């Protein structure tokens, strides 16, 4: 009688305290669970397995179709290419092709292929396999984003015999060998290409490389397993040992702030694109290593709009170059982890001309004298220089990645010191950036790309080039750029690219800031961390994991 009624009535009292009790219990539960988990953390399964942190989720994984540099990180080791570039010397060395020869007229290249190579699915590698790959890449239905472009003026092939193939060109094309050394022209198994459609092959890729693709779960992981049969690697591939990595699991660390945390917590054993601001801290950790890997190609830079006043005037562009303290920017934003850039190519790119380094030292006084000469001055004493009543105001467009916003802010403050006002516009993604470029609605715009082959410059600096956002046009420069692609002789090309680089800087088409450096972090137990000539792609074959 008494019990049931009073129990029911007393319940709310306990409910009132219950809130606090639940909270305490939750906390206690969490603590117990954490302790239990901590005990369980150490018994990790053995085996040579590493987790590799990728930094962006590639838009697609098929090297013949898709364009990202990131996809090469796993897939450079799935495929072999006909030719490799030696990572140290940048020279071309044999890959799946043992020898190659250009016809005297430069219109065809003949490749003698290795005879001892099989794809991961057992299909033998031969000239027909190369032909099947070329057929696929040139098929318009595939809509190849990069592979096709790398073939340049390619017109077709002739299978000479089972292990010899000739590629035909409509005009001489020196960058062909570089294209053939990139993962985008990796050789895929013709059997797998037949079995899967253009859209589904990317989940079932089959190459001849030192690793096999075991699993792709888009947005989550890519798992590679070592190919025990592999015995046809280029000279710079190491022999397999007990400490070779058997399994590589790739995961996507798209948020830069979590990368160093993932490395410190041993969630990954190797990861790229660490924040420069995290490096100092990581260097103090003896369990970890940081590698600075320079990326050849264009530096991190801003193009001047040469079609819009006032940056259409050479004197103004030159003044802006003199007014920029690049050393200060590199020290402040990139913690000195990257070299200062001086020209349209970075110093590790073949045919780089160091003569550009002497141009445009930081000299704000000279910058102001150039502006004075162009008719500018502070007539209304408001701190901003003007001419004919027009204040010297510039618009700068840049994306949010690679610390570009911090770079832009420093430039803004440096230029304000000499009386130039800069409006900063930060865009969230590439399509928005491109739309500003196409509308010409800017004075400076951040844009760059990577690559070992200096002909990369063509799309950015030739009149009407697909990515010529500066709108610059110089017929003599066009001639040099065109000729450098046709000439195979390295000396001739070097001379042409020297002229190109000097002309671009004399004309102040671009404001180079820093040479791109990929800050990679690894566990100290990992040896043999070497990257391909292109800079982005690790040689998984050479990794050695000490216990």
């Amino acid at each position, binding site marked *: 009688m008494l019990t049931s009624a009073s129990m029911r009535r007393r319940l709310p009292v306990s409910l009132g305290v219950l809130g606090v009790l639940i909270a305490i219990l939750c906390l206690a539960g*969490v603590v117990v669970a954490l302790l239990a*988990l901590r005990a369980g953390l150490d018994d990790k399964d053995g085996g040579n397995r590493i987790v590799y942190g990728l930094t962006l989720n590639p*838009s697609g994984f098929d090297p013949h179709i898709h364009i990202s540099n990131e996809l090469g990180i796993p897939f450079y080791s799935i495929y072999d290419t006909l030719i490799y570039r030696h990572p140290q010397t940048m020279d071309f060395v044999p890959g799946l092709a043992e020898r190659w020869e250009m016809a005297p007229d430069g219109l065809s290249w003949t490749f003698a292929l290795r005879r001892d190579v099989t794809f991961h699915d057992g299909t033998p590698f031969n000239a027909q396999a190369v032909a099947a790959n070329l057929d696929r890449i040139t098929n318009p239905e595939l809509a190849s984003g990069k592979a096709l472009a790398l073939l340049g003026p390619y017109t077709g092939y002739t299978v000479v015999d089972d292990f010899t193939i000739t590629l035909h060109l409509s005009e001489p094309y020196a960058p062909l060998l570089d294209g053939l050394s990139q993962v985008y022209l990796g050789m895929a198994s013709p059997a797998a290409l037949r079995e899967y459609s253009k859209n589904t092959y990317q989940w079932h890729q089959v190459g001849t490389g030192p690793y096999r693709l075991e699993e792709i779960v888009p947005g989550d992981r890519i798992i590679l397993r070592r190919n025990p049969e592999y015995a046809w690697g280029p000279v710079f591939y190491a022999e397999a040992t007990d400490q070779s990595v058997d399994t590589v699991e790739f995961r996507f660390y798209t948020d830069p702030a979590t990368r160093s945390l993932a490395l410190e917590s041993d969630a990954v054993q190797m990861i790229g694109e660490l924040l420069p601001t995290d490096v100092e801290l990581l260097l103090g950790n003896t369990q970890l290593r940081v590698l600075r890997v320079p990326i050849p190609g264009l530096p991190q830079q801003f193009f001047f709009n040469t079609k819009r006043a006032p940056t259409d005037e050479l004197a103004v562009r030159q003044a802006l170059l003199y007014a920029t303290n690049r050393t200060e920017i590199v020290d402040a934003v990139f913690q000195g982890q990257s070299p200062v850039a001086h020209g349209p190519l970075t110093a590790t790119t073949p045919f780089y001309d160091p003569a550009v380094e002497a141009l445009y030292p930081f000299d704000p006084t000279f910058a102001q004298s150039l502006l004075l000469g162009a008719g500018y001055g502070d007539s209304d004493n408001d701190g901003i220089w003007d001419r004919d009543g027009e204040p010297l105001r510039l618009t700068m467009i840049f994306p949010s990645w690679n610390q570009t916003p911090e770079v832009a802010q420093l430039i803004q403050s440096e230029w304000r010191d000499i009386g130039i006002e800069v409006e900063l516009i930060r865009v969230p993604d590439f399509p928005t950036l491109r739309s500003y470029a196409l509308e010409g609605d800017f004075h400076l715009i951040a844009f760059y790309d990577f690559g070992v082959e200096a002909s990369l410059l063509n799309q950015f600096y030739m009149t009407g080039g697909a990515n010529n956002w500066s709108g610059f046009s110089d017929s003599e420069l066009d001639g040099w750029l065109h000729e450098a692609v046709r000439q195979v002789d390295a000396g001739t090309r070097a001379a042409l690219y020297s002229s190109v680089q000097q002309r671009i800087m004399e004309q102040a088409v671009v404001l180079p800031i820093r040479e791109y450096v990929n800050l990679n972090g690894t566990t100290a137990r990992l040896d043999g961390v070497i990257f391909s000539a292109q800079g982005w792609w690790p040689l998984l074959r050479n990794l050695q994991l000490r216990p």
Partner: protein
Amino acid sequence: MGKFILQRVGAALAVAWIALSAAFVVLRALPGDAVDATLARTGTSPAEVAARRQALGLADPLWRQYAAYLGGVVRGDLGESLVTGQPVAQMIGQNFGPTAALAGSALLVGVALGMALGLAAGLAPRRAPGWLAEGVAALALSMPVYWTATLAIYLFTVVLAVLPGVGGGSPRQLILPAAVLGFHTAGSIAQVTARSIRRTAAQDFVRTARAKGLGEADVTDHILRVSLLPVIAVVALQLGFLLGGTVVTESIFVRQGVGRLLLAAIDNRDFPVIQGIVTLTALTYSLIHALADVLYALADPRVRVEG
């Protein structure tokens, strides 16, 4: 009741259609499309870029694209990704499980923690447990998920090293993201619970009960019965926050899921993928709301509308 349910489901479908149409229009108002985001980047010639755009149907008049898309959706076909060529339904399907696991466990954490904090703050105002609970709830509401998540990762995986580092896959790697997201969900649940308790406590019937000489325990009993009802609605509302919260949480915690799929699709201007996710999210959200309405009506007959 049948008519009531039918009304709510109809409303949910209408909301999904509006969301789909809004997504369709807004996406096309943004600069650039999938061809700009991918092919055009590599220096491909303008002619080839235009041909590709034509082939993908992006050059068609807007009304035709809309009609084609809507026709597909009605037939249950969400289209194919413009970038990978994968069917959108398949892409969402692959990513739905991890997101549901994250959102579900975060909701559990959020409701448990939120109710506990709310009860403490509502029943013990101006006392230590009440102050504490209110403080924690305010923190949960005011700190950005991004910040708490980074802090939690640093604390639990690096300093204390009691949890595995961020990544997807193992169930243990769900603990931290669910706790962080749940913590933020708890904030508003706690505040609504506490406010509702206080509002009820100030009502006449409570004063009458006290005047009648009822013990404080019985008064609390009466208060709770009335005041916990609005919490159902707020829990349903929190699902909206959770669906948004998973986008950030998945990125930071390196988890597979619909949120990350959406981020990547936006970067690539992969219209069909974005539209598919927006439509399904709107549908899920409004169906859950319909469910909450029905539950609410079951719990409190006053809510049932006539007609």
